[in-house]
């Protein structure tokens, strides 16, 4: 009996959570299950921010994008220093050749210039090269949105050709990009030719300038010398004297000769006077001595003293002689430096030394498909996460009211 009083065993019940989210609803209102939003509504963000960019970039990089080949060349602009330089700087430079830094920049600027572009368009048929049928619609020129004028072509050209200088080694690297490897090579070779011609023009110009300067120096010195000679001649005619110094010397000689004569006559006179004081020749000798003394005095007077004396003209002669010497020296110097300039212009010139000839590429360097695709994937993933966070934070403003 006691067994019948036992309570019935507790039946285990299953505990379940409700499927619906807890919301207290007023009794007189009922919940309408919202219509299931469309697929686009639910996954629109994912589609537009992540899937679409990936598909587009995959389509472009995988199917549409044309291969672009790069031809690379390297050169350096060198200048050989003339052997005629005997300065300390030349002695310090152990090498006969130096790197021409300024000219390096000039040449790389020229390669990326409108001038080079114009030459390429004329001689290498550039417009056909960049509009090859194998090019894709974005990378050809003209493409769907660009103009066909020269300015747009130049912008395209700057992307197609790059010249970079390595500042440590001074080597310039020229890279040309084209749809066909042989096109890239041909254009690169043409560019190297133009660069060489440009360097030669620089040389010719420098040579002309150097020679023109020294020629002018020589002409100036010659004119100056001629002018001094002219002055000299005019002065000689004016004073009736060829050379004051020689004139002086000859006068002095005459004087000393006359003095000797006088001394001799004096001796004769004294002897005669002592032996035969009444000799009639005494008077004649005395007369001779007197006239010789008069001559000596006259010559002395010509040498110095008075306005017409040689000494007063000697100064002017010396001045003119000095001027003539200076002018002659200057002409000589100018002539030497002209010789030197000519020699240097022959020896010292720039030349473009090609280190690496343009290569014929057998591998399309661009587009870098994997890299571009990964970059697109990463950025579009970031775009997706950002937008999702921004949108959900924005909508959180509404939910909590």
């Amino acid at each position: 009996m006691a067994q019948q009083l036992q309570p019935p065993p507790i039946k285990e019940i299953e505990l379940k959570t409700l499927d619906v989210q807890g919301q207290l609803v007023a009794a007189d209102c009922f919940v309408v299950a919202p219509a299931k939003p469309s697929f686009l509504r639910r996954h629109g963000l994912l589609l537009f921010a992540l899937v679409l960019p990936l598909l587009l970039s995959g389509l472009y990089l995988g199917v549409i994008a044309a291969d672009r080949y790069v031809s690379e060349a390297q050169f350096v602009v060198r200048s050989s220093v003339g052997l005629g330089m005997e300065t300390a700087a030349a002695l310090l430079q152990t090498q006969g050749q130096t790197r021409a830094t300024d000219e390096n920049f000039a040449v790389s600027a020229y390669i990326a210039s409108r001038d080079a572009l114009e030459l390429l368009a004329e001689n290498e048929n550039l417009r056909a090269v960049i509009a090859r049928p194998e090019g894709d619609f974005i990378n050809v020129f003209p493409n769907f949105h660009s103009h066909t004028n020269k300015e747009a072509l130049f912008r395209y050209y700057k992307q197609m050709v790059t010249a970079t200088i390595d500042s440590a080694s001074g080597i310039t690297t020229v890279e040309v990009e084209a749809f066909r490897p042989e096109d890239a090579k041909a254009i690169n070779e043409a560019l190297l030719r133009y660069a060489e011609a440009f360097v030669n023009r620089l040389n010719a110009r420098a040579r002309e300038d150097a020679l023109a300067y020294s020629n002018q120096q020589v002409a100036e010195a010659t004119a100056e010398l001629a002018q001094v000679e002219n002055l000299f001649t005019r002065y000689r005619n004016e004073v009736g004297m060829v050379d004051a110094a020689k004139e002086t010397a000859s006068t002095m000689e005459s004087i000393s000769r006359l003095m000797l004569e006088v001394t001799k006559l004096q001796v004769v006179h004294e002897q005669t006077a002592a032996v035969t004081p009444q000799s009639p020749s005494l008077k004649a000798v005395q007369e001779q001595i007197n006239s010789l003394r008069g001559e000596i005095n006259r010559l002395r007077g010509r040498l110095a003293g008075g306005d017409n004396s040689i000494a007063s003209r000697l100064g002017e002669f010396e001045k003119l002689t000095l001027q003539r010497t200076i002018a002659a020296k200057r002409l000589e110097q100018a002539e030497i430096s002209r010789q030197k300039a000519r020699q240097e212009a022959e020896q010292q010139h720039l030349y473009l030394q090609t280190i690496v000839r343009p290569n014929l590429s057998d591998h399309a360097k661009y587009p870098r498909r994997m890299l571009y695709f990964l970059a697109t994937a990463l950025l579009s993933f970031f775009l997706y996460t950002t937008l999702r966070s921004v949108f959900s934070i924005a909508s959180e403003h509404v939910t909590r009211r």
Partner: protein
Amino acid sequence: MKIPDFVATFADLQPAARIVEGFAIQRRVIGALMIREAMSRFGHENLGFFWLMGEPLLLTVGVMVMWTAVGNTHGGAVDVIPFALSSYSLLTLWRHIVGRSVHAMRQNSSLIFHAHIRFLDILIARALLETIGVFAAFLIAYAPLALLGRVPVIHDPLALCGGWLLGAWFAFGFGLVLAGLTELSEAADRFVAPVMYITLPLTGAFYMVEWLPTTMHDIVLWSPLVHAFEMFRSGLFPPEYGMKWSAPYIAVCAFVLTAIGMPLVHYAQTHVEYS
């Protein structure tokens, strides 16, 4: 029969209409937060709101006077005064935005009591306030100096404003990451100050790229902040000083930081320690 508003909340989805409405609310919230931030920081006492500009102005002018007195020419052709002005304005912006992002969520957790306010709003409001305030400070310092002829006339306003805004965006993105990280990890907080100090040379505030050896150019130009400084300076200085920058590079870097920071902040919202 009218369906009550909350019915829409049943769906765990974000229909476009709600996002648009959310943005409208967010815009108003950010505006209000900016005013609140300015008021709570500066109040109505003495100069009040002006201190927003006054603080960076004092720093910039102080440094300019100091550098001029010391005769620090920084080795370049640029005058000390315009260089200090450009450097310290943008550096102040960078330091303020980043500095005010650290623990920004924890400090303002009480605001979350208001249902409309989200943590992101606080961060955006603070960054916007700094961007506007420090730029105003720059202009206030610039105007008299330009009139006295000590600073060149702005060469390119677009590059100036663009450099400023891109720099601010980058700082904001960095701030977002820091705001998220410092809430998630206590240790992150300890690293902020040393890292900010050590990376100071990478900001480009104390040099121009042109002054460095050519081999250094490629290295320092990895830093987006250097680009921002150069862009800002290229707006102020004439182009012969040779500024080097790329706006897309700053934008991509700032975007990547924002993309990392935004979900981080979204995630960290639920991990804020309420004080």
